[in-house]
């Protein structure tokens, strides 16, 4: 099997193979000596809902330190050019490092969105000066980044940005609101998509900026989710001033940047800029479904077994599908848009998996005590189950992309194409809110 996998890999890294092996050995040694072993389940569900503000800030500080140690040991920015403080190595090296990282602590909060998509966008579109200013501190854990992309009421229409950036001499003045940023309240910098021209069609009046998150005029509000999590924030920008030197890409050409930005976001787990234990990647960690069945006293019930088997099936298929599609995209055999295929699968599977857990919990899904072990909170997870099909682009958008961009079917009729954005209908409620 290995020979075939390599044949498909197509990274053109054969010359480095010996070096990769040496690098991997060095990585293993360093990791074993320097990083704490942790149960991977610690990273499931990413950010726990039960941390206090202080606890979360402490964890962020610790992860910054961790990133610094990675950097000092020569393992930060493995695929980032040396001139920006990286290691200038290949994706194969990053993969080898990620393999070696299995079962160890790592700076989880710094990967998304700091490394991808933000760092990826900076490297692709940033000026030389922007890169020299920001990439090194990012790799040292000194700058955590955030993406100011979605807007309240924006939904799937990412380009329908209402946050405005008005030119004022050598600077821009931004006003508007952004939403669904993870941990903006402990981050440092942000990419921001804003509208710079209201008199051209939607996609042609956008521009991307970078800006520090802690500054007057930028208010950050933590959103409470129905399960009590305050993972996400909403930002209110009031006359936020950004120098023109902090513009990314050309004026009114922000959509060119935006398309790649969202591509890097989708390809998070395939990105050579992201450091995470390889085994953690896309797994839903469904092994615990056996424990659910056991805790519910149903381990011998064939119907429960079918559910446990289905959960594991979805987990395995999800992983294999991601592998197939990212290999195909990397080798240029399918177009980039095909990344929507694993996204759709994962979204549907995530919903189903939470439903399976809730089914297995039975009556305990509705009410439980701490003694119920793995069955605790299955009901709350069920309430939150659609998040897997909403966050990071809805499954509906993924279906649009697959049918239109992968299968080449006719585009959905847009009522906002080819007309000045100012004239686009925004519906009764949006109209009331945004004039």
């Amino acid at each position, binding site marked *: 099997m290995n020979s075939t996998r390599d044949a498909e890999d197509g990274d053109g890294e054969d010359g480095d193979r010996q070096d990769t092996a040496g690098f991997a050995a060095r990585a293993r040694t360093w990791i074993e000596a320097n990083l704490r072993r942790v149960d991977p389940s610690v990273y499931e569900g990413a950010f726990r809902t039960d941390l206090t503000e202080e606890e979360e800030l402490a964890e962020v500080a610790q992860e910054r330190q961790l990133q610094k140690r990675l950097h000092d040991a020569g393992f930060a920015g493995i695929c980032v050019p040396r001139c920006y403080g990286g290691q200038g190595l290949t994706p194969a090296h990053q993969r080898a490092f990620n393999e070696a990282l299995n079962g160890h602590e790592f700076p989880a909060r710094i990967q998304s969105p700091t490394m991808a998509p933000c760092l990826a966008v900076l490297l692709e579109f940033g000026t030389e000066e922007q890169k020299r200013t920001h990439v090194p501190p990012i790799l040292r854990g000194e700058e955590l980044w955030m993406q100011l992309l*979605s807007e309240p*009421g924006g*939904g*799937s*229409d990412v380009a*329908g940005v209402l946050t405005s950036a008005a030119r004022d001499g050598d600077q821009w003045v931004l006003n508007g609101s952004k*939403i*669904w940023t993870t941990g903006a309240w402990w981050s440092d910098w942000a990419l921001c998509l804003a509208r710079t021209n209201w008199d051209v069609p939607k996609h042609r009046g956008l521009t991307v900026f970078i800006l520090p998150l802690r500054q007057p005029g930028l208010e950050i509000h933590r*959103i*409470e*989710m*129905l399960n*009590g999590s305050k993972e*996400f924030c909403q930002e209110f920008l009031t006359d936020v001033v950004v120098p023109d030197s902090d513009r990314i890409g050309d004026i009114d050409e922000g959509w060119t940047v935006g398309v790649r930005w969202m591509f890097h976001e989708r390809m998070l787990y395939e990105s050579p800029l992201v450091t995470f234990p390889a085994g953690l990647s896309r797994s839903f960690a469904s092994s615990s479904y056996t424990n659910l069945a056991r805790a*519910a*006293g*149903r381990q011998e*019930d064939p*119907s429960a077994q079918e559910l446990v088997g289905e959960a594991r099936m979805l987990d395995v298929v999800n992983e294999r599908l991601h592998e197939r599609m990212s290999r195909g995209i990397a080798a240029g055999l399918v177009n980039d848009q095909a990344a929507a295929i694993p996204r759709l699968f994962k979204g549907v599977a995530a*919903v189903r998996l939470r439903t399976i857990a809730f*089914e297995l*919990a*039975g*009556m*305990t*899904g*509705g*009410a*439980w*005590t701490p003694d119920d072990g793995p069955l*605790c*909170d299955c*009901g709350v997870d*069920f*309430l*939150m*189950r*659609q*998040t897997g*099909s*909403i*966050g990071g682009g*809805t*499954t*509906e958008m993924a*279906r649009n992309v697959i049918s239109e961009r992968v299968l080449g079917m006719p585009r*959905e*009729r*847009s*009522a*906002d*194409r080819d*007309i000045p954005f100012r004239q*686009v*209908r*925004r*519906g*009764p*409620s*949006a109209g009331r809110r945004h004039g």
Partner: protein
Amino acid sequence: MRFQLTEDQQSLRETTAKYLSDAVPVGHLRKLRQHPAGYEEEYWRQGAELGWTSLLVPEERGGGSVSGNALVDATLLAHEFGRHAAPGPLLSCNIAASVLAGEAPTTRHAVVLDELLSGSQVVSWCFTEGHPGGHRPEGLTLAIDVEGDELVLHGTKRPVEAAAQAGHLLVSGRSGDGLTQVLVPVDTPGVSMELMETVDLTRRYWVVRFDRVRLPVDAAIGQVGGAARQVEHQLQLGVVLLAAETVGAMERGFDMTLEWAFDRYTFGRPLASYQELKHRFADMKTWLEASHAVTDAAAAAVDGAEKNAAELVSVAGAFVGQYGAELVQDCVQMHGGIGVTYEHDLHLFLRRATLNRTLLGTPALHRRRIAELVAEAES
């Protein structure tokens, strides 16, 4: 709910709807999250005056339905509770009232019934147990043994609605091969309770433990060991009331989302103009009408003691349980991220549909029950 109600039914429904809109608007519900009972006593007492606890009790015992079809009338209340995600121990109190009124009263039982009807006392129904099979009368394991002139209760019940608010507990348990029901004062020695966590915002549930709890034999309601039919009947009442409440929650979620689809524009046109979403609304509308239909049919069959009542009840439990939560979840999906925020109202109805799906048999368990009934009918 039926397309057409009698005038009295319509008035019952409207009175309750108006009271709920005034007393527990959604903003107030959020505040009740921290309230130990999830509702104010006065709220419940006023509700009782509107008939919330008396529909399943015959007139001669102080109650009275408005149409002669007691359960059908009660489903109208449950429906409005669902539409408003309303707090309060509607299920337990109605079941308890129905049971107490169904047997020749002891003096003590008569007092409790009167207080139930006036809303000044809550009685919690201790029925389900946390093991597989603990959702069905034949699966109960809590022991109610006769020792001399005493009954001894031993075992655990969960989840028990509003146990800490209750003056008495209506306990269904096993006496040898038969079932017995006992009215237990909450302060009886050996009774202990532990608050549970739940998906609902305002309904509270407890684990209630009975550690060799002793009561005089006349604490039993009806025959010791002879309550099987009684328990089966009240379980049917309960499943139908939960289904009706879920239909109300579905309807409200659907209405909110339909409005949202017309109101919300994306790519310059309303969500309601996207065919894929339109088709999902068509599915949701179909599930909603089907849920109305089967819940109404089950209520009428129980009222009429029809021979297919047990089957219809479990069909309602299976169908409404399944599609209730699925419908509101699809409403969440259509709302996108804001649909899972605490600030949005939708989760109030999702919580109710989700909770009800678990309480008296999950959809899967109701499907198994239907299969049993079909096999019995065919053999």
